[in-house]
């Protein structure tokens, strides 16, 4: 038996001949992405002009005519640089000739642009090392866009993700333990890790690693998880031995995260774990068992840990202590209330109380409250709609993926972003207890933007439909016909 005929793994159903074709890279136009990006640019420019006019009108005296410069974009340089970066990412993909998704980049680019508008509108001394909030956010956005483009263009094979799933898992756990040992405490949570001048929150990166590991493990053992079962008396339970490594990974992640008091990340990891298990097996029993475990764990944590109890109590009745414990939630609810349906307009909301914004962490934990006030119900519905678009694209990529690993990876990556957005959105709206995770692509912060950029880049890479199929045979047929005709003549 010769092993020479073994074709490449990773791309299903393609013969070896493809290796030669892969070398040739031809630019390929992406007009759909281009026009959507143009629309993003127009929308953000209008938003910026609206913001500028509001700010100028507020500065001008009551009843006076608007100064001449009122209709320029607000801090247009920042916006211009950002839009240029999006265009560059688009051009990079055009030149690389990938046949990947054309909706993801504009949708995510719009969210990033709204983030930039919000950050340039907030007081600049809230945070930021490089000359203010907006400038720092712009630098991180540029890094994120560049990272997305690089991952989307460079990643052509999923072998390095697929083969080393246990290595990835080990790296993730190591990262968490490192944070626990060497991390710095910020706002009562030990989440931040300093490496030289850089500081970041590893749990953001960990969510990507967790999805990669779960996708690798589940795709390998899918058939076993579906077919086998452990019998305990009359009850058919899932095959426990095959769940052990996964449950261990989950327990380690969850345990460390709970010790670090990062409830949002714990909730996110658990949700993604359950969703991927269900996608891989289509067995409701897993979901039911998972939810029961979740309820039991929540009850236990509520009674064991003071900080969990505090969070839940604040959630149930923030008005019990509206000046200290429930302060942020109460102020966020007021902000949503002030916004109403149409919003107060960019630059018109967020009244300053005693020289400070009512919500101290508005740029990190409550960007949705700020947007809800200034853009209203209509505005945040559109923003939540953009997250739905990201989820839909991810599931669509998963549905047309060539094998189980790629399908699970695409579904997991898009859902991790979507679930995170909805956890923090629901937290801001007092639908679930507030947890300190970021709103993907919108919140201020480098590690969140970088991790989500990697997610988008991987989704783009996974959505690539490979080398173009050979052109339809009409031309050759025509040439044949001509030859035959010539022969007949």
């Amino acid at each position, binding site marked *: *038996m*010769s*092993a020479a*005929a*073994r*074709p490449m*793994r990773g791309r*299903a*159903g393609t*013969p*070896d001949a493809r290796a030669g074709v892969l070398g040739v890279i031809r630019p390929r136009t992406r007009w*759909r992405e281009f*026009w*959507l990006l143009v*629309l*993003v640019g*127009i*929308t953000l420019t*209008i*938003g910026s*002009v*609206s913001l500028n*006019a*509001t700010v100028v*009108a507020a500065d001008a005296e009551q*009843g006076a*005519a*608007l100064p001449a410069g009122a209709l320029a974009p607000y801090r247009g340089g920042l916006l211009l640089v950002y839009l240029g970066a999006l265009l560059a990412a688009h051009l990079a993909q055009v030149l690389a000739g990938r046949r990947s998704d*054309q*909706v993801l980049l*504009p*949708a995510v680019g*719009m969210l990033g642009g709204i983030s930039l508008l919000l950050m340039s509108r907030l007081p600049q001394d809230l945070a930021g090392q490089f000359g203010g909030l907006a400038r720092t956010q712009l630098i991180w956005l540029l890094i994120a866009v560049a990272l997305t483009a690089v991952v989307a263009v460079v990643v052509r094979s999923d072998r390095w993700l697929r083969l080393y799933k246990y290595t990835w898992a080990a790296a993730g756990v190591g990262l968490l333990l490192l944070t626990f040992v060497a991390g710095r405490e910020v706002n009562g949570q030990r989440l931040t890790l300093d490496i030289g001048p850089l500081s970041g929150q590893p749990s953001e990166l960990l969510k990507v690693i967790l999805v990669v590991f779960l996708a690798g493990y589940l*795709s390998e053992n*899918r*058939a*076993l998880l*579906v*077919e086998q079962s452990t019998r305990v008396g009359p009850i058919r339970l899932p095959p426990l031995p095959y769940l052990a490594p996964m449950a261990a990974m989950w327990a380690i992640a969850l345990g460390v995260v709970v010790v670090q008091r990062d409830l949002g990340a714990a909730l996110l990891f658990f949700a993604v774990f359950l969703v991927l298990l269900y996608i891989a097996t*289509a067995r409701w029993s897993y979901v039911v068992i998972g939810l029961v475990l979740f309820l039991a764990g929540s009850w236990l944590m509520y009674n064991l840990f003071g900080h969990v109890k505090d969070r839940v109590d604040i959630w149930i009745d923030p008005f019990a202590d509206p000046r200290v414990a429930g302060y942020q939630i109460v102020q966020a609810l007021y902000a949503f209330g002030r916004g109403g349906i*149409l*919003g107060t*307009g*960019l630059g018109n909301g967020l009244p300053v109380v005693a020289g400070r914004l009512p919500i101290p962490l508005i740029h990190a934990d409550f960007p949705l409250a700020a947007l809800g006030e200034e*853009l*209203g119900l*209509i*505005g945040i519905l*559109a923003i939540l*709609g*953009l997250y739905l*678009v990201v989820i*839909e*694209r991810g599931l*669509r990529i998963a*549905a*047309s993926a*060539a*094998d*189980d690993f790629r399908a699970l990876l695409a579904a997991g990556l898009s859902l991790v972003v979507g679930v995170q957005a909805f956890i923090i959105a629901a937290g801001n709206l007092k639908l679930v207890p507030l947890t300190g995770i970021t709103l993907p692509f919108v919140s201020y912060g480098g590690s969140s933007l970088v991790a989500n950029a990697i997610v988008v880049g991987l989704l783009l890479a996974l959505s690539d439909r490979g080398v173009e199929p050979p052109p339809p045979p009409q031309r050759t047929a025509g040439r044949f016909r001509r030859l035959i005709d010539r022969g007949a003549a």
Partner: protein
Amino acid sequence: MDGISLSLWLLRLLFLLFLYLFLLAVVRVLVRDLRAASREPEAELGRLQVVASPGGEPRAGTVLALDAITTLGRDVNNTIVVDDQFASSDHAVLTFRGRTWYVEDLESTNGTYVNGTPVDGVSPLGYGDELQIGQVRLRLDRARR
């Protein structure tokens, strides 16, 4: 409402309007994409890639589309004819039930192997698994869509 606040109000609404225009454009692309996907003819259920075939029939490297019930063996009446001297005339059958492929050994002389382990009766077959019949090795792949 004076002229300035009216124009500010209109500018605000224009931003929201364009936000929704963008969302509409995106949703149109998505709907078109889904329509196009559903118009495609009923996709095949899976495919077998011939990894190694010393006998030359089926040829190594060929990709065979699978029916919901696909029989393999040396007999010419099989869906996939495996012309190998170690294959039985009715060697094995692949069936697609629910969402999973199963392989059943039809009491062949030399047995059917999945990833190197012999199949006893019926066994589930995952995408990427390697099936061996005689000296012929085949890999089950997901259908391309």
